[in-house]
């Protein structure tokens, strides 16, 4: 049996660990709220943006933007992957990558090449090691209050590649914040938009409310007055739309990160408690045994005299 002092140091170190996990748990608990507020604050923009895009899609314009055309032959596919910067958040990132890998392999089996745009340190670390995947652009350390401007660079890299015909499809992967206990790894189509529209229809059919609120407002043929011209304005609007979608995903992922970390740290604290309890029991037993032995030795010695 281990000596008393050894067990004591083990208990001490476990207690120190518990202190850290508890602190992390409380920090995350307070950060979740802030992240959720951010998510809520950005929702009106996303909703307004979707409405405008829905209108644009209905307008009977004779201009076609590359984002609106579905290319028949797919040679290269892009993924925008949103991950966290730091670890200790349970299986959040690995769940997302695990969800993503089969999709990537499936494309690769068809002979399609894969480009990745990584947001967050973990995605950078993961995809730079992955064979057959080209890292197109990356941004890390968005902080607790991500701004759209921080994401502009990576989004532009992806969209330019699409416009130049280097990418034929663009997907967005992130963790959808359902509630504190549940975060759903999600892969959504980003470009071209008809693909998004068909996904949207599927969403509506399945009764999911994420895209609710888009409805036809006018039925007859109409078109916008474009100032200065359709190409410029539509390009601008579509750029902003993609940015808003990616920004929303980054916020969802941030809230998911804190929620996942809180849960992971809570279970770590619980485990530490259990270990401390077990170790204390062993320590007490060892102490008791030592005392008993000493007494019996004394008694034995006395009776021998």
């Amino acid at each position, binding site marked *: 049996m281990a000596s008393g002092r050894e067990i004591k140091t083990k208990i001490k170190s476990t207690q120190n660990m518990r202190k850290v996990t508890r602190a992390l748990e409380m920090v995350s608990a307070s950060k979740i709220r802030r992240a959720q507020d*951010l998510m809520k*604050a*950005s929702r*009106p*923009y996303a909703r*307004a*943006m979707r*409405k*405008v895009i829905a*209108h*644009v899609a209905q*307008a009977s314009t004779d201009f076609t933007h590359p984002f609106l055309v579905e290319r028949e032959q797919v040679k290269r596919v892009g993924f925008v992957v949103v991950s966290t910067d730091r670890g200790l958040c349970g299986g959040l990132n690995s769940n997302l990558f695990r969800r993503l890998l089969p999709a990537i392999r499936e494309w690769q089996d068809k002979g399609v090449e894969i480009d990745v*745009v*990584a947001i967050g340190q973990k995605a*950078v*670390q993961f995809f*730079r*090691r992955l064979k057959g995947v080209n*890292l*197109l*652009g*990356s*941004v*890390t350390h968005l902080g607790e209050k991500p*701004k*759209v*401007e921080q994401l*502009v*660079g*990576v989004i*532009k*890299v992806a969209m*330019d590649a699409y416009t130049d015909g280097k990418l034929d499809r663009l997907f967005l992967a992130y963790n959808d914040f359902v509630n504190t206990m549940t975060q759903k790894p999600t892969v959504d189509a980003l470009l071209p938009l008809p693909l998004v529209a068909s996904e949207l229809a599927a969403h509506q059919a399945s009764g999911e409310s994420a895209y609710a609120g888009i409805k036809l*407002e*006018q039925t007859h043929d*109409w*078109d*916008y*007055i*474009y*100032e*200065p011209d359709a190409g*410029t*304005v539509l390009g*601008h*609007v579509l750029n*902003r739309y993609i*940015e*808003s979608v990616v*920004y929303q995903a980054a916020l969802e992922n941030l809230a998911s990160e804190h929620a996942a970390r809180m849960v992971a740290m809570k279970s770590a604290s619980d485990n530490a408690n259990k270990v401390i309890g077990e170790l204390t029991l062993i320590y007490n037993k060892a102490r008791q045994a030592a005392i008993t032995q000493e007494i019996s030795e004394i008694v034995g010695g006395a009776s021998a005299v």
Partner: protein
Amino acid sequence: MTHTIRVDVVSAESEIYSGEATLVVATGELGELGITPRHAPLITRLKPGKVVVTEASGEKVDISITGGGILEVQPQVVTVLADSAIRSADIDEAAALEAKRQAEEALANRTDAMEIAEAQAKLAEAITQLQALERLRRTLKH
């Protein structure tokens, strides 16, 4: 009853204004625009500046759009999607280059990361050796 038009002004980071108006004045890319209810559908970029909303009560509300944005007009709704910061093609281009550079750096540092891991392993080994020595010394003293 006077006709009104619904006005929503939002930016990516917050909701700025929402209400009913009789007139909305904004600075579009090609000049000033005055929008009254039942305006024809229109979509344009906004220059950084002010959007002035005249409410049904006659009160005027000034909303400053520091980064410019997008104005969409439907017969019953005006939507202003404000950018949260000043943007230009140059700034976007610079940001894109920075994103690419970061990715290249991450790829170039691949070997560095391995070296760091190796160095860390060696360091840990050295520390345990030192600790063992220390322990040995202590036991010898006793």
